[in-house]
């Protein structure tokens, strides 16, 4: 290894100058943040309605009371999230692969898959849940599953459509030269998809996929309109009992805590994917 290089006077001067400037920027940022923060606090707590809002939204007593019920509701959110996310991802991947099949013989399959993604990205999720959880049981078919399963199905089918488009974008973003190389090695279309295209596609779209999963985490609670009690519903019930909004705040905090690990994973995956992706195409 070479000996450590000692900087010249010129370089030392430049380093000192940049350091001074950096320190000044940080101090300025801190000062302006402090000023802004103070302004906000003053504006909020000094406003005439502040006391009312504080008791309505930040009541410690009620927060403690409603916490167990909201937490229990959150457990439903978590269970639904895990199951629906997995199924929606699987469905989305399947539909995306169908949409990228080439050749005229597959036209009907492609058309149906396309129709599905258009339809379920268009219909509002609430309506789909209503149709599934209130409409299907109305048909009185043998072996109709419970409203939780039906609501979950509505979520899977709707989110599957969005995820299908994300996956499709990923698949189509894999450079055709990768396909050429894989086919040249004698890999069949299916093998090419499985070993070359999909691994790359999925890594590329991991960030938007995870983003959609975070969104799903919140939409999962909509099954509560069919009867089951999720965290938001539990908060709503507690709110109505006391005419106080604090339970909603409790629910919000819990949701954020739930989302944090997911968000951390998203960021980590994004970084790792970006590192690997640009090797000699």
């Amino acid at each position, binding site marked *: 290894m070479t000996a450590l290089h000692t900087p010249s006077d010129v370089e030392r001067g430049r380093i000192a100058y940049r350091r001074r400037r950096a320190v000044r920027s940080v101090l300025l940022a801190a000062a302006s943040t402090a000023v802004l923060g103070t302004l906000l606090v003053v504006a909020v707590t000094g406003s005439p309605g502040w006391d009312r809002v504080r008791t309505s939204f930040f009541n410690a007593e009620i927060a403690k009371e409603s916490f167990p019920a909201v937490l229990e509701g959150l457990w439903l959110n978590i269970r639904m999230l895990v199951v629906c996310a997995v199924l929606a991802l699987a469905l989305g991947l399947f539909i995306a692969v169908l949409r990228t099949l080439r050749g005229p013989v597959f036209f009907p399959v492609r058309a149906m898959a396309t129709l599905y993604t258009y339809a379920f990205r268009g219909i509002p999720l609430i309506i789909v849940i209503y149709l599934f959880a209130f409409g299907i049981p109305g048909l009185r078919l043998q072996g109709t599953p419970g409203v939780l399963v039906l609501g979950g199905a509505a979520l899977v089918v709707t989110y599957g459509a969005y995820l299908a488009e994300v996956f499709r974008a990923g698949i189509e973003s894999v450079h055709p*030269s*990768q396909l*050429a*190389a*894989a*086919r*040249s*090695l*004698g*890999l*069949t279309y299916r*093998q090419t998809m499985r*070993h*070359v295209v999909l*691994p*790359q596609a999925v*890594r590329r779209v991991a960030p938007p996929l995870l983003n959609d999963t975070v969104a799903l985490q919140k939409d999962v609670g909509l099954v509560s309109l069919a009867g089951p009690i999720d965290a938001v519903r539990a908060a709503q019930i507690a709110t109505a009992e006391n005419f106080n909004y604090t339970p909603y705040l409790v629910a919000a905090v819990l949701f954020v805590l739930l989302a944090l690990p997911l968000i951390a994973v998203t960021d980590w995956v994004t970084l790792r994917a970006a*590192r*690997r*992706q*640009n*090797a*000699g*195409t």
Partner: protein
Amino acid sequence: MLLSVDRVRKVFGPAVVLDDLSLAVDEHQVVALIGASGSGKSTLLRCVNLLERVDDGTITLDGEDITDPRVDPDVVRRRIGMVFQSYNLFPHMTVLGNITLAPTRVHKRAAAEAREKAMEWLTRVGLADKADSYPDRLSGGQQQRVAIVRALVNNPRLMLLDEVTSALDPELVGEVLTMIRDLKSEGMTMVLATHEMGFARQVADRVVFLDGGRVLEAGPPAQVLGDPVEPRTRQFLSRIIEAGRL
């Protein structure tokens, strides 16, 4: 005759890229394709490899008409190895993974056997220490050599090389050309499209000059590159000489 291209025609929309082109390659022969961009070199290679469907004419490999629609292209491609200008290594797999993918999945060899063979090749080309690295850690020349190994490890009857040194820095070109020369000395049949005229002169048994989708001139390197008959060939070569590549 290992490979026979008979009056092949290929169009892309209004453009006729291969126009009634015929070419014959004997076993153990090395044929160099030269010509301007758009003269059809890459397209010809892709047609031989069935990555493109010909619009007319036939291609015969080992006596079998591979342009017959009843032929399974995947099966044909197992006998041909192709290497591309931009290496096209799979970025999500290690070097070893890249090389062993086809042997295990396509040729159904055992994983251990495939790995052994792969390491043999990597050692031969001096890249054994990169076996577990990902492609983004290798230089261009190293990646291209891995790409060549990846194609070779399947024992192809024929190797197609599409301007494999064009994307490389000049000092990395040498290591790839050395490897190709070694392949030739082992008797591999190769068709290579190239701009490296000096290399073509050393390695090729025949040089074929393509112009406007047709074979304009073909013959031994000394003749086509040293003393071409066609004026168009002369024109092309003089420009190459000017660019200092001959």
